[in-house]
């Protein structure tokens, strides 16, 4: 059998078992953020700030789920690149669709 890959290889990652304690911290953080999101929705913020706050907190929650629950922080460079590529493509989807509508058909409904 071939040996374990060299540490610089993009598909290599150090065997790292995340501790249950860290999982509990992340889980608690997620619950706290949920409470903050619900609380913030009852406060009248100027302009579009309510949506920005809600989505901002949701993005933070998603980030810590991806990094810690899904182990991406401890994964190989290949995995990290794959996740980043997915995020990029999703942004392209949203951005291109929204600019298409915003520049042409906005208000004509």
């Amino acid at each position, binding site marked *: *059998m*071939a*040996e*374990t*890959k060299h540490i610089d290889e993009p*598909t*290599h*990652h150090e065997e790292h*078992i*995340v501790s*249950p304690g860290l*999982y*509990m911290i*992340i*889980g608690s953080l*997620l*619950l706290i953020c*949920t409470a903050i*999101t*619900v609380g913030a*929705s*009852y*406060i*009248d913020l100027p302009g579009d700030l*309510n949506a920005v706050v*809600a*989505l901002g*907190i*949701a993005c933070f*929650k*998603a980030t810590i*789920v*991806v990094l*810690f*629950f*899904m*182990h991406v922080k401890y*994964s*190989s460079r*290949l*995995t990290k690149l*794959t*996740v980043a*590529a*997915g*995020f990029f*493509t*999703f942004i392209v*989807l*949203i951005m291109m*669709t*929204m600019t298409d*509508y915003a520049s042409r058909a906005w208000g004509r*409904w």
Partner: protein
Amino acid sequence: MDSHTVAAQTAETAHVDHEHPPYLRHHFVNVEQQRETATFGMWLFLLTEIMFFGGLFCAYLIYRNWYYPAFVAGSHQLSIFLGTLNTAVLIASSFTMAMAVHSSEVRSRKALITWLLATIFLGCVFLGVKADEYHEKWEKHHVPGLNFSTADFTHPSKDYKDDKLAPDMAEKTQVYFSLYFAMTGMHALHMIIGVSLLTILVIRAWGGAYVNGHVAPIENFGLYWHFVDIVWIFLFPLLYLISRHQ
């Protein structure tokens, strides 16, 4: 060795020349490569899922901008308590799933089975609450295409008197509820598939699988489960929390 000699090997004689764990498939060089490949494949699948849900989110973004009053009125018809409860349930299930992966990594059969069962239980709680919410929508005539009535929006009861809409905007609440059922329904379908796969995993774990170093199936199912949780993390504020202060 010619092909006949290779084919004539038995299970006992075949692996004398190359010792390896029984779960290592022969088209992989070693366990690390197999594990990395499986994770890569699962992430590629999740990327397709991101784009799939992304399309629905995009439609939601545009229609919310176009028909904002209708979306506000529609959102007020949902129960914040049940939505928050479901969010907490899914976060807890993500924690139990992460603990199941941990149990597999430290090769503890009893812990693995316990955490997998806990995840199944929480998933079923989520689905039960969702079913109750759907039933309430049916009773209140808020299901587009089935029994939809705009009466709750053109002539709201005193609890919702701030949600009075003109008739043409009241019709647009159908757009909100269509998106509600499409997005939460697709999410619930993913939950059902997840719970079914979990059942298979826990049965195999009961038989002794996944605690001998073969972590990949539990790990990669965990990726799927966390992804479904992330979708809900975005669905909840977008559907339930549109301007609760108004």
